[in-house]
C-alpha cells in the first residue's frame, strides 16, 4: 500500500498575501489549486493513497476512484520533482 509523505524540508504554507496555498521546498515555491491542496492536506505520513481518496470522496460527495486517480497523478508528479516520497 502506498503511503505518501513529504520529503524533508517540504511543507504546506498559506500564502496570505496572494490568498492561496503553496508547497514550500528547498529553493522552491509551488502554487496549489484547491484540488491539489485538498489532497496534500491529507498527506501526513500515515494515511495511504486509498485512505486519502476515500476520505476526500466522503467529504466532497465524489467518486473515490476518480479522486484516487487525481491524487496518484498529482503525487507521481510531485515525486518526480523530488517533493514527495511514496
Amino acid at each position, binding site marked *: 500500500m502506498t503511503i505518501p509523505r513529504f520529503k524533508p524540508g517540504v511543507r504546506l504554507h498559506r500564502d496570505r498575501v*496572494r490568498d492561496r496555498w503553496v508547497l514550500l521546498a528547498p*529553493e522552491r515555491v509551488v502554487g496549489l489549486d484547491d484540488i491539489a491542496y485538498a489532497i496534500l492536506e491529507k498527506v501526513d505520513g500515515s494515511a495511504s493513497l486509498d485512505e486519502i481518496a476515500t476520505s476526500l470522496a466522503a467529504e466532497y460527495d465524489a467518486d473515490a476512484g476518480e479522486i484516487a486517480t487525481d491524487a496518484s497523478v498529482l503525487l507521481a508528479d510531485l515525486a518526480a520533482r523530488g517533493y514527495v516520497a511514496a
Partner: protein
Amino acid sequence: MNAPAPTGLLAELTHRCPLACPYCSNPLDLIAAARELDTESWARVFREAADLGVLQTHLSGGEPASRRDLEALVASARDAGLYTNLITSGIGLTRDRLARLRNAGLDHVQLSLQDVDAASSDTIGGYAGFQRKRDVAAWTVELGLAFTLNAPLHRANVHNAARFIELALELGAGRIEIAHVQYYGWALANRAALMPTREQLDATVDVVADARTRLAGQLVIDFVLPDYYADAPKPCMGGWGREVIVVTPDGRAMPCHAAANIPSLTFENVRDASLARIWNDSAAFNAYRGTAWMKEPCRGCPQAEIDWGGCRCQALALAGDPAAADPACSLSSAHGRMGELALAEATTAPPPYRYRRFEK
C-alpha cells in the same frame, strides 16, 4: 510604479567568514562586524518581508554561523512565517548547534563544498574545512533536515561535476546545486584564475543532462551556466525588483547582491525605512524595474519580459552602461568581446588567487 510582490529575501547576515573562496559573490569592500544589523532589526525585517509577500528567506553571508544569534534569527524568521534556507560553508556548526537550529524551525541546509577531495577543497577555500563539512552533511541528514550540496564550478574543479553528483548521493543530499561561478565581486577580481574553457563547460552540460534523467525523483539537480559562454541572458534575480530583496549586513536593501557595483544608485537602509516603502518607492528598486528603462536592442525585444534585459552589473562591467543589454545576449554590441575575454583567460596560465579577506 505598481511593483509585484517579492517571493524571496536574501539576508546577508554578516560578511565574516572563515573561508576565503576566490569566487565569493560578496563585494570587495566587506562590511565589518560593528556595522551589522542586530537581532531585533533582523526580526523586524523578516516580519516586514513576510507582510510584503516574501515566502522564503535565504540566510546567507559571509558565513551566517559566524552570527552568535543565528538560532534567534532562524526562530524570528519562522515566527514571521518564512521558509528558512541556511546557506553555509558548515564552519561554525556543530551537531548540537544544528539541532538547536532545527528546533528553532530551520527548514533547509545548503552546504557548500569547494571540491570533491580535501586537498583541493581546502586550497580553493583557503581553509582546512573539508572534514568538518562532511560531518555537517552527516549531522544534517541525521537530524532530518533537508540537505542541498552546493558545488560552485570553475577552472580548478570543473572536471569534477560527475564526482560532485556522486558525492551528493553518498552524503544523502536531496538536492544539488551545480553552479558555474558568476563573475561579480571577488569572482570578477579572480576571473582569469577561474574561467573554464568552452569544452570544459560543455562537458558539465552533458554530465548534468545524464544525471537528471538517471536520478529523477531521487536527486533534484539545479544547474547554473556561466554567462560568458551564453548567447542569451538569464533573467537575473528573476528581473530587477520583481522577486527578490537583498539586505546587506549593514541594512541596505538592494535588488541584487552585486547592485552596489552600480555607482549611480544609492540604496536605502532598513534602519531608516520600511521594506515595503523601499521595495515599492525607492529610486534604486525602480531604476531597472519593468521595461521602460530599456534601450535598443532590449526595447521592444520579444524576450524583454522573459529575461528582463539580463544582468545590469554585467552590462556596466563589460558594456560600460548599466542600462545596456546584458553582454551575454548575442544582440549586445559587447557580446563578441565577452566571448573573446573568456577564451583568452581560459587558455592562459591562471594567476594565483586573490583570496577573499577583509583588506585594510
